[in-house]
């Protein structure tokens, strides 16, 4: 079975790009439209909420900065995992895959804690426009991170069983592409949602 997969990976394609890599890029392009629409909604409704809580009432920028840093670091460990996979350094690959997954879980834990705090302060999905657009945007992002963590842990388990190696390093690379994309989306969200507000002087 592994042999056939090996052959399949080296089929000649008209563009030279592996089928699955091209598919992942296309998928990420469509995801850009998905998150773009959610972000556009958030920006449209910025400052339009008729009642609080408002962003400056709930945001804890230092805290979110730390969790953002954690997610950024996970992209580094992801890149290390991909590099290790390509070089056949399977032990390192497994280590970095696990690190990435754990950092991702930490980020999600941070999000969960943050959301709980916000709810305690009275910000729910139904409170106002801010609540709706914020939770749906960051919630979908969190869902994407969760799927990414699931993929990483699955890869880690498969690697532990010897099914991921240099010959099918593409699998790790594809996970890497997805993971980096999710990270970039977070950078956009952190900037436009968290940072832009205090910079604009706060207020509704």
């Amino acid at each position, binding site marked *: *079975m592994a042999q*056939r*997969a090996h052959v*399949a990976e080296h089929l000649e*394609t*008209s*563009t030279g*790009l592996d*089928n699955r890599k*091209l*598919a992942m890029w*296309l*998928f990420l*392009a*469509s*995801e850009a*439209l*998905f998150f773009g*629409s*959610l972000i556009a*909604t958030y920006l*449209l*409704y910025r400052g*339009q*909420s*008729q*009642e609080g809580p408002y962003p400056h009432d709930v945001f804890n920028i230092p805290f979110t900065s730390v969790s953002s840093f954690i997610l950024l670091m996970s992209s580094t460990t992801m890149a290390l995992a991909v590099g290790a996979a390509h070089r056949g350094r399977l032990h390192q690959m497994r280590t970095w895959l696990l690190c990435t997954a754990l950092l991702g879980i930490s980020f999600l834990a941070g999000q969960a804690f943050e959301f709980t705090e916000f709810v305690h302060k009275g910000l729910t*999905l*139904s409170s*106002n*426009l801010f*609540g*709706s*657009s914020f*939770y*749906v945007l960051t919630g*979908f992002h969190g869902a994407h991170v969760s799927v990414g963590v699931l993929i990483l842990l*699955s890869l880690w388990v498969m690697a532990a069983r010897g099914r991921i190696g240099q010959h099918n390093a593409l699998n790790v690379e594809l996970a890497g592409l997805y993971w980096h994309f999710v990270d970039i989306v977070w950078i956009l969200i952190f900037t436009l949602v968290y940072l832009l507000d205090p910079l604009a002087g706060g207020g509704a």
Partner: protein
Amino acid sequence: MAQTTFEGSSLGVLEALRQLRRQAATYQGIWSWIATVDHKRIGIMYAITAFLFFLAGGVEALAIRLQLAVPEGQVLDQEVYNQMFTMHGTTMIFLVVMPLSAAFFNLVVPLQIGARDVAFPRLNAFSYWTFLMGGLFLYSSIFFGGAPNGGWFGYAPLTEKAFNPGHGIDFWALGLQILGISSLASGFNFIVTILNMRAPGMSLLRMPVFTWMTLVTSFLIIFAMPVLAVGLFQLSFDRLFGANFFNPLKGGTPLLWQHLFWLFGHPEVYILILPAMGIVSEVLPTFARKPLFGYPFVVFSGIAIAFMSFGVWVHHMYTTGLGPVANSAFGVSTILIAVPTGVKIFNWLGTLWGGDIRFKTPLLMALGFITMFVVGGLTGVTHSMVPSDYQQQDTYYVVAHFHQVLFGGAIFGLFAGIYYWLPKFTGRLLDERLGQLHFWLMLIGFNVTFQPMMILGLLGMPRRIQTYPTGMGWDLWNMIATVGAFLIALSILVFIVNVIYSLRRGQKAGADPWDGRTLEWSIPSPVPPYNFARIPVVRARDDFWHHKYREDEAGRPIPVVAGGANGHEEQEGHAEHIHMPSPSFFPLIAALGFPLIAYGFVLADYALVAVGVVVLLFGIYGWALEPASE
């Protein structure tokens, strides 16, 4: 222990699936259809399912027309009427035209590019099963308190819980999400297939136009559907969890829904028409025995339409009060998009000009497309005159316009494709006389139904009204339109008879019944599972034609001895051991997860949602861990 039982039963299920998988690989029996990953079988399943939904949508149309035939009609009450037109529109767009186009992508594109299958055969199967699940889920709403009743465009806040407390809109929103996943998967699959799996020598500018239109349409799908998905999620969050996206009481604006919907919706109409335009671009050269006139212009106009389609969406919103700047800007962009659309008409004329035209049914249907689409396109231009549109918007003039392009255009084009390509996949020609009868009845019926609607719109009849009083000057035209609708229905009956008769007793087609130009005609009919015994090497556009004919000094074709399909067929005996992807049940299993999740959300049964997620994950993991072929 519970864990062992779970593992044990999983292993048992997996073993049973493996057995069935081996049986399915024999291409015999029902399991071979359920587990198929063969693009040709998937295409046939798409076609049959889409056609059945076409009949459903047609019945809905007839019901609407019966209700509107006379003033103060009593056939359908207000609620049922609203459900009827919602389902008619939603069905025809998402469950008929899109899947019928997908049927052709599946059946034809791999053959036209000289490939053995698509890039991701299991993803392909997944697209089909997800489509089926989405359609069934949507229609099952009838049993849960009623079908959706907010129109196919679902404007908020009418579709919000406050004004629409039943489950119908939830079925609509979640059903469209499921269908969106199907389309997205298809889009990714065909872009990769077309970009990556072309036969050696087939550069992009040597690809048949139908394949080009498939590529462009697939890009439109992957960029437009996510925007709809966001709008639908926001609506669902409003309805199910109390969010405020379209809630004016909390400062939300209903215009956000419209922007998101039409950002999707306008590219969507080009998703609906470009494949049919691709079909016409194949049929005309074949039946005029000349190449497509101006291939580069036709291809680039398709690409231009796709880009521009993202810049015109506000023309659905001229009356919402966005202001003169927005209306003027989008008025101009809408005027401009008429140019690449119109150019194709001239190129098609140029194809017929100087040709040797044979009036077979595929050509008649393509001619129907051209004549009807010109009218539809020109009425579109009158819409783009913004202040004039203030009168036309939301009237039967619009209904006439989009049926002109979607029925007069897309449906005629898709029927051209059916008559043209059905012989390739079944080995039998459809009966020519019944085909001509179908064509004429449908053309007459179509015009009798929809031309009066242009007049009705200009006489001031709005859309989506369950009835109207007498004395408005509308009575006669409505009656005529209703008669026309039944003529259309009659023409479809003729088609059904033709299919049933021809599948059994139709004339045998042979590999190349039309003296075609593209690669699909170089292989036997019906097509063997591996498509090509040897992957062809392509040396030109319309490569197969050049195998059959060379040109004299005047540019006229002269047959080459033994260059036709017969010559290619001889190669069948030398078919190497060709490795085809194995069948799989996991695409279907994964697809089953979606309606379970959706029912869970509709019924607020989160245990059911969890079950659906488990089924989906089981399907995905099984699929990921299963070797593509064994």
